[in-house]
C-alpha cells in the first residue's frame, strides 16, 4: 500500500454518496466502503437507493443507482442529509444527485462517461465538467477509464471489462481520501472472482490505482480521518434491516422451541426475506414460495394451525391482498407474524422508494372489527429485536402481529451489537399436549390467550373457521349478544398486551416545550435533531414508539407533560390522526411523502419553530 505522504486532518463526520448507472456497480462499491468503515470503528448508517427497473437504458436519468453512507466519531442514526462527497460516474448521476451536495462539496466524476450521447440522455445542454456550472463545488474530474486502462495495459483486456472496473478505481480514490484500508475489499474480490483470476487482477489493480492516484496528485492537501465512535462494549457486525429481521425470527423460533414456517411471494422490498430464510434449512426453517400473496398468508395460517411459528412478509400491495386472510387469523386467534416492508404507494407506487404510509391500512384495512397487534422497527439493527418481540407477543398471546418496516430500513445498514443468544428470554407457547380439559377456546386468565391444540395430538380434534364462535364452546354462533362479546374480547386481547410491554420513557427532557413522537425508520433523524436542539438549550423530549397497537399504557399521560407535540412521519399524518383521536391533544405533524427518508435538518427546523414559539 502506498506510503501516506500527506498530513492528516480529523473531522467528526462525513457523508459520501456513490452514484452511477445501474450497471456501474455502485451498490457493491458502497457495501465495500461500508465494510472498511466498520473496521475503522466509526458509527455508520447507509442508504442504498436504486431504480425499480433492473437495467433502465444505460446513461438515462431513470437508470441511476446510488449508495449513501454517513460515518462518524459520534453516534449517528441516519445516512446524512447533505453530501460532503458525490461520486458521479456519469452525467445522469450528477444531474439527479447534485442538489443534495453541500456548497463547496467534492464531486468525483469519471470524465470518460461524460460523452455527448450521455449528456444528451441526461439533459445537460453543455458538459458541466467543462463550463462553470459547478463553480460552487470542488470538482475532481478524471478519465478513470484511461487510468484503469493504463494500470492493466500488460493484460490485453476488453474496453468493456476495463470500464466495468472503474468503480473500483473510484472506491480506491475515496478510500485514500478518508484513510480506509483496502484489505477487506481485496479479500472480497479474491473470493468473489475466485474462478476468474483475470477479474481478480483487474479489479485489484483498479482499486490500487485509485488509491495511489490520491496519494500522488497535488489535488489533496491532506487525508481526512474520522476517529472511532464510542460504542457499548461487545462484538459488532454491520447489518441490513431485512437480514436483522430474519435473525430475529430464527432466534425467536429457537427460544420458543418451534420450527419456522415462512411463506412469501416475491415483492420489493421484502423479497430478500424469503431468499435469506430459504438458506437456513438447518435451523428447521421451512420456506414456501407461494403462487400469490393470498396463498402465502393462507399457507401460514395452515402451518400455524399445525404448530409451526408461521411468518409471511410482503409490502403494501401484498398487504392489501392479505387482508381477508389476516382477518381469518384474527377470528381463529392464531399466532402468526406478518412483516410489511413498506414502500411508496398507492397501488404500485414507487416500489424501491421508502414511505411509512401503511399504518392505518394495517390497523384498519380489514372487514369488520379486526384488531391486530402492530409493531414498528426503528433502525436496521432494531429489526432484530422487533422481529423477536413480534414472535413473542404472537405466541404468548395467541394473536396475529404485524411488523412495519420500510424500504429504508430493509436495505439500509448500521453496526449491530451481536446479542448473547443465551441471555435472551425463552418464549412461552400455548401448545397443549394432553386432552385433559382441552377446549380450543379455553383462555388463560391474564392474556386471554386460547389453547393451541394441534393436529396429530390425540384427543384434541376440533374445528375452527372464520364464522363467529360461541364465547364458551367455540362452536359456530349467530347469537347477537355473543357476537358483540366476542368483538370486545378480541379487542381486549390486544389491549391487554399493554400490560406486557415497557412504558414509554422519553429521551431528553421528561417534560417541557416539545415532545417529538415518532415511529419506524425516522428514529435516527429525530434523535439527532432532538440532540442538536437540546445542545442549544431547548427543552425537548423524544418518544419513539415500537408498539403502535396497543400503545404503551403511559403514552397519554406522557403527552400531557409537554406544551407541544410534534409527530414527524413519511406520510400525511397517520400516527398524528391516531394520537389526536385517542388522546384529544393538539399535536402537529411534520410530513414528507417523497419516497425519501426524513432528514435531520427538517426535523430540527420544526422543533426550533415549536420550541421558540
Amino acid at each position, binding site marked *: 500500500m502506498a506510503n501516506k505522504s500527506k498530513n492528516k486532518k480529523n473531522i467528526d463526520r462525513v457523508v459520501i454518496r456513490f452514484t452511477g448507472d445501474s450497471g456501474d456497480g455502485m451498490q457493491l462499491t458502497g457495501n465495500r466502503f461500508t465494510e472498511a468503515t466498520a473496521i475503522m470503528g466509526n458509527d455508520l448508517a447507509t442508504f442504498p437507493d436504486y431504480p425499480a427497473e433492473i437495467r433502465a437504458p444505460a446513461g438515462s436519468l431513470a437508470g441511476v443507482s446510488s449508495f449513501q453512507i454517513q460515518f462518524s466519531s459520534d453516534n449517528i442514526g441516519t445516512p446524512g442529509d447533505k453530501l460532503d462527497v458525490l461520486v458521479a460516474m456519469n452525467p445522469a448521476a450528477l444531474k439527479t444527485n447534485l442538489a443534495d451536495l453541500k456548497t463547496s462539496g467534492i464531486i468525483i466524476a469519471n470524465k470518460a462517461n461524460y460523452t455527448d450521447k450521455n449528456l444528451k440522455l441526461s439533459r445537460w445542454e453543455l458538459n458541466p465538467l467543462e463550463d462553470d456550472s459547478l463553480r460552487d463545488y470542488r470538482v475532481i474530474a478524471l478519465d478513470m477509464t484511461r487510468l484503469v486502462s493504463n494500470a492493466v495495459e500488460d493484460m490485453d483486456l476488453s474496453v468493456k471489462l476495463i470500464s466495468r472496473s472503474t468503480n473500483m478505481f473510484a472506491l480506491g480514490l475515496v478510500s485514500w481520501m478518508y484513510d480506509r484500508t483496502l484489505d477487506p475489499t481485496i479479500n472480497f474480490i479474491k473470493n468473489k472472482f475466485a474462478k476468474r483470476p483475470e477479474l481478480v487482477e483487474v479489479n485489484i489493480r483498479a482499486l490500487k490505482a485509485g488509491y495511489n492516484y490520491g496519494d500522488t496528485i497535488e489535488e489533496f492537501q491532506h487525508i481526512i480521518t474520522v476517529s472511532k465512535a464510542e460504542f457499548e462494549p461487545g462484538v459488532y457486525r454491520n447489518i441490513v434491516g431485512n437480514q436483522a429481521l430474519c435473525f430475529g425470527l430464527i432466534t425467536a423460533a429457537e427460544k420458543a422451541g418451534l420450527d419456522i414456517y415462512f411463506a412469501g411471494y416475491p415483492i420489493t422490498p421484502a423479497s430478500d426475506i424469503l431468499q435469506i430464510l430459504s438458506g437456513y434449512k438447518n435451523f428447521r426453517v421451512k420456506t414456501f414460495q407461494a*403462487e400469490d400473496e393470498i396463498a402465502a398468508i393462507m399457507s401460514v395460517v395452515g402451518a400455524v394451525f399445525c404448530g409451526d411459528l408461521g411468518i409471511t412478509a410482503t409490502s403494501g400491495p401484498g398487504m392489501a391482498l392479505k387482508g381477508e386472510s389476516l382477518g381469518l387469523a384474527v377470528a381463529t386467534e392464531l399466532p402468526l407474524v406478518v412483516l410489511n416492508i413498506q414502500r411508496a404507494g398507492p397501488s404500485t407506487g414507487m416500489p424501491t422508494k421508502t414511505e411509512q404510509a401503511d399504518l392505518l391500512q394495517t390497523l384498519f384495512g380489514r372487514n369488520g372489527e379486526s384488531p391486530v397487534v402492530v409493531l414498528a422497527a426503528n433502525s436496521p439493527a432494531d429489526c432484530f429485536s422487533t422481529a423477536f418481540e413480534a414472535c413473542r407477543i404472537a405466541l404468548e398471546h395467541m394473536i396475529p402481529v404485524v411488523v412495519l418496516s420500510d424500504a429504508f430500513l430493509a436495505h439500509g445498514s448500521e453496526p449491530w451489537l451481536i446479542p448473547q443468544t443465551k441471555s435472551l428470554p425463552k418464549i412461552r407457547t400455548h401448545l397443549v399436549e394432553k386432552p385433559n380439559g382441552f377446549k380450543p377456546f379455553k383462555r388463560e386468565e391474564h392474556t386471554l390467550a386460547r389453547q393451541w391444540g394441534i393436529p396429530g395430538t390425540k384427543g384434541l380434534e376440533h374445528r375452527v373457521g372464520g364464522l363467529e364462535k360461541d364465547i364458551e364452546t367455540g362452536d359456530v354462533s349467530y347469537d347477537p349478544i355473543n357476537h358483540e362479546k366476542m368483538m370486545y374480547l378480541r379487542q381486549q386481547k390486544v389491549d391487554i398486551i399493554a400490560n406486557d410491554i415497557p412504558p414509554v420513557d422519553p429521551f431528553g427532557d421528561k417534560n417541557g416545550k416539545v415532545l417529538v413522537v415518532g415511529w419506524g425508520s425516522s428514529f435516527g433523524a429525530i434523535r439527532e435533531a432532538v440532540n442538536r436542539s437540546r445542545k442549544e438549550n431547548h427543552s425537548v423530549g423524544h418518544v419513539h414508539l415500537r408498539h403502535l397497537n396497543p400503545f404503551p399504557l403511559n403514552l397519554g399521560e406522557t403527552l400531557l407533560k409537554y406544551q407541544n407535540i410534534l409527530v414527524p412521519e413519511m406520510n400525511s399524518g397517520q400516527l398524528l390522526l391516531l394520537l389526536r383521536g385517542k388522546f384529544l391533544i393538539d399535536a402537529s405533524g411534520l410530513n414528507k411523502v417523497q419516497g425519501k427518508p426524513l432528514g435531520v435538518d427538517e426535523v430540527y427546523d420544526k422543533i426550533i419553530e415549536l420550541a421558540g414559539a
Partner: protein
Amino acid sequence: MSEVSTITLSKKDFISDQDVRWCPGCGDYAILSQVQKVFPNLGIPKENFLVVSGIGCSSRFPYYLDTFGFHSIHGRAPALATGAKIANPDLSVWIVTGDGDSMSIGGNHFIHVLRRNFDLNILLFNNQVYGLTKGQYSPTSEIGRISNSTPFGSVDYPFNPPLLALGAGGTFIARGIDREQKHLQGLLYEAYKHKGTSLVEIYQNCWVFNDGAFASLTDREIKMETQLILENGKPMIFGRNQDKGLMLKGSKLEVISLTKKNSINKVMIHDEQNKIQGLLLSELTYDKNYPTPMGVLYREEKPTYETMLHNQLATALKTRGKGDLDKLFNDSHTWEVE
C-alpha cells in the same frame, strides 16, 4: 406406543356433535356418509386427519366430521392445506371444495396445488351452481344456463375440471357422483392410496337451485347408457346390455356398437397411466354424444412436494449440522469494542 397398529375406529367416531345444516335431500349428505365410512378404515389415527374447506355449502363439511378441521375463506383451502402439509407431512389432509370455490375464486390455488403434487386429497363437489348465495350460475354451468344472475342465459363457457386438472399437472384425476355410493367409496380409497394430489370430482345434486343437473347420469332407466364406468385394464364399454364401446379413430374417440363379432377387440382398454387417454376422456365431459366417464381418469406416480422439501431439510441438517445462532451471527466481518 402400539396404537397405530391397533386402531379400531368406526363411522360413529367421525360424526361430530354439530347438527348438519344442509337442505334436506342435498347430495352432500350422501358424500358425508361415505367419507365417514371410509375414514375409519384407512388405518390412520383419528388425530392425524385434517379436513380443510373454503366457503360454500360443501365447505361446511369439516364441522360435521369429528377430526381436526378448518373452515377457511373462499377459494383458499388448498393454500391452507399446503402450509399444513409442509408443517406436518404425517397428516392425512382432505380438502372439501365446490365448483365456485375451486374453479372460480380459488382457481389459482387449485391449479398450483395440483402442480406441486402434495400428498393430499381434493373432493370437488360440483353442482354447477352457486347454492349458498342462492342460485347464480357457476364456472361449471353450461353456456345458456338461466340463473338468478343470467336471466337471459349465460354467455360464459364452462371449465372442464378434469381437463383443467390434467393441464395443471394433476397426478390423480377421478370422477364420481353422489348417488353412486359404492362407486364413490371406491374412489375415496383410491384417492387416499395415491401418494400425490388426488382430485375427486363429485357430481352433486342441488335440488333447490339446480335440480336434476345430473339426472341423466342417475336415472335408473338411462344411466347405463350415459355413464362410462372406467376400470383400469378393462375395455371401455357401456350401455344397458354392455353393447357399446369407445374406439380410437384417428385422434378421436368414437362410440361403436359391440353387436358384431370381434368388435370388442377394437374397444380401447383403459390405461389410467396414459395421459393421452386421460385427455380424450376428459374431453367427453360436456359432449352429449358420448357417455360421461366415471372412475379414475388418470393416475401418475411422482415425488410429492413435501417429500422433496423435507429431504432438503434433512440433508441440510446432515451436511451443515444443527443451526447455531451464535455462529451464524458472527459469520461476517465482526469487530470488538472493549
